[in-house]
């Protein structure tokens, strides 16, 4: 597995009036070419911030982002812009209300000066067809479309420069449930057809199970578990992941205990030791004192816990 896009010990802190917000703390992970890596966590876990950092929209406070093994500085980002695109959560805010849809989709091509004006128009038509919108959509404005259609437009824009990787920041969560599955299938189809990698940010584990090859779980800016999808769902090692899985409502199953109580602590004042220990059902004295390091319990399955589930370690 060769890494396409890599976060190397990335931390992102924001200075606010109330103090320093530690949105992302020392996260290292890699997305391989063609794979779907899901980034999972509650709101406030730093998953969107990490996604923005990996899309080059946010500079890390420390650590680095590497593309194809090359660390990216400002000039480096300029050269990989066409390879990494982004789809946002809110399809209403992501499309310029005063721009024609054709111009929106063609924007990355225009900005990157790919092809002639006529070639770009042809590509826009092809993209509209690919995401299942009629050709005359190009002449219309974003407000004339529904949420799902807008997300299709946003996906078409992301696909325009034929990227190697798309960062999708909760692309389904603003949509109606009936539309979610259509967009999910569209993403799965496109990724199969184009062979592109997807960094899929989500809090919906059912969707993640459907789409992801590997899953990274974030808690309070820390990477707590990283494993292939089946490994993570079947041999969960981190108590936090286990409680997330337990919280997923399923038909025909009684609500079980094991869901989390309490709120995630403020990233302004993260707990000592393991950041999860105040809410962890398995916490012991050690957890409040020292922060666990991320380590592999089995090959390709890394967990950051002193007492992982399943007896290993």
């Amino acid at each position: 597995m060769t890494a396409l896009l890599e976060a190397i010990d990335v931390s992102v802190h924001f200075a606010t009036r109330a103090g320093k917000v530690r949105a992302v703390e020392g996260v290292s992970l890699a997305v391989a070419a063609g794979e779907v890596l899901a980034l999972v966590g509650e709101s406030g876990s730093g998953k969107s911030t990490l996604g923005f950092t990996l899309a080059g929209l946010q500079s890390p406070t420390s650590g680095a982002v590497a593309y194809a093994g090359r660390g990216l500085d400002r000039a480096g980002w300029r050269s990989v812009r066409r390879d990494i695109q982004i789809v946002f959560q809110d399809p209403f805010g992501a499309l310029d209300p005063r721009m024609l849809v054709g111009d929106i989709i063609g924007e990355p091509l225009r900005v990157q000066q790919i092809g002639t004006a006529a070639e770009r128009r042809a590509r826009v038509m092809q993209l509209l067809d690919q995401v299942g919108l009629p050709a005359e959509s190009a002449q219309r404005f974003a407000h004339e479309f529904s949420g799902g259609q807008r997300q299709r437009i946003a996906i078409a824009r992301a696909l325009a420069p034929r990227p190697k990787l798309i960062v999708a920041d909760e692309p389904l969560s603003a949509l109606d449930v009936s539309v979610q599955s259509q967009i999910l299938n569209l993403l799965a189809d496109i990724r199969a057809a184009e062979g592109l990698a997807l960094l899929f940010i989500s809090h919906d584990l059912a969707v993640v199970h459907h789409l992801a090859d590997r899953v990274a779980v974030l808690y309070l800016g820390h990477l707590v578990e990283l494993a292939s999808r089946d490994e993570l769902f079947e041999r969960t090692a981190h108590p936090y992941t286990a409680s997330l899985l337990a919280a997923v409502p399923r038909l025909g199953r009684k609500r079980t205990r094991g869901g989390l109580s309490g709120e995630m602590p403020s990233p302004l004042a993260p707990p000592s030791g393991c950041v999860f220990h105040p809410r962890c059902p398995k916490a012991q004295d050690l957890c409040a004192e020292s922060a666990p390091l991320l380590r592999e319990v089995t090959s390709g399955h890394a967990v950051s816990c002193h007492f992982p589930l399943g007896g290993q370690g």
Partner: protein
Amino acid sequence: MTGIWITRWRRLRGHRAAMLSLIMLGLLIVFVLAAFPIEALTGIDPDEADLLSRFDPPSWAHPLGMDEAGRDVLLRLMIGGQISLLVGVLATIIGGGIGVCLGVMAGYFGGRLDGVLMRFTDGMIALPLLPLLIVLGAVDLTKLGFSAEFSHSGAAGFWRIVVIIALVDWTSIARLVRASALQIRERDYVRAARAAGAGPFDIIRTHILPNIATPIIVSFTLTVGRVILFESVLSFLGFGVVPPTPSWGNMLNNAQELVTSAPWLAVWPGALIFLTVMAVNFLGDGLQHAFDPRSEAGE
């Protein structure tokens, strides 16, 4: 595939009040330009006083009668309109242009540039207007490197007014544009453009400016009317358009004292300023409609 500008033009065409305003402005331009052929054909000198025909009523030779110095009112309205319209449009565009440029830079780039530009703007706002105008009006153009011949010509006087108004009138637009740009720069579509590799000036041109077009247009249209009247204040202070050269502003000013004895001297320039301001405002409405695809056509 039609471009965005064709779409905007179509939307402007669909706005009836804006189209009527365009026709109105066209007629006003024809009216003020008609001064040249009329002056040439009839040989009337609009600046020459004739005390025997003071306050003459309308006649065939002078359709709108004579003013307090016995000058042809119609011809003076035409010539005054050339100056008032040009000053109104040029000063608005130059001053507004300065305001939009500084405001959008401050709002989009933020940080230290924002701080410097906005403190500069606050400084301009804090300067008292009247002494500032007197100082700017007293600037000796020959010291700025212009030839003596140009410095004392009518053109220099005209440009002096335009520059003075532009220099004192850009601040409110700058503040307005900065506030609007601040909002737009955080939108996801601006982020998406950045992720696609668009540079700041490309983003300002394609995303920021179209999305803050509404406040810019409102501010510009309000400024045109204000500037036309402001010009008369400058004339009153002794620079700007100096009598006997007419402008709508100074004609209206002069007529103030005579409003009981010769009200029509105030009515005509007042009506023309009113028409101009109305037409510009409705055209502004139409432009807002053209730029905002979500707005429904007024009629």
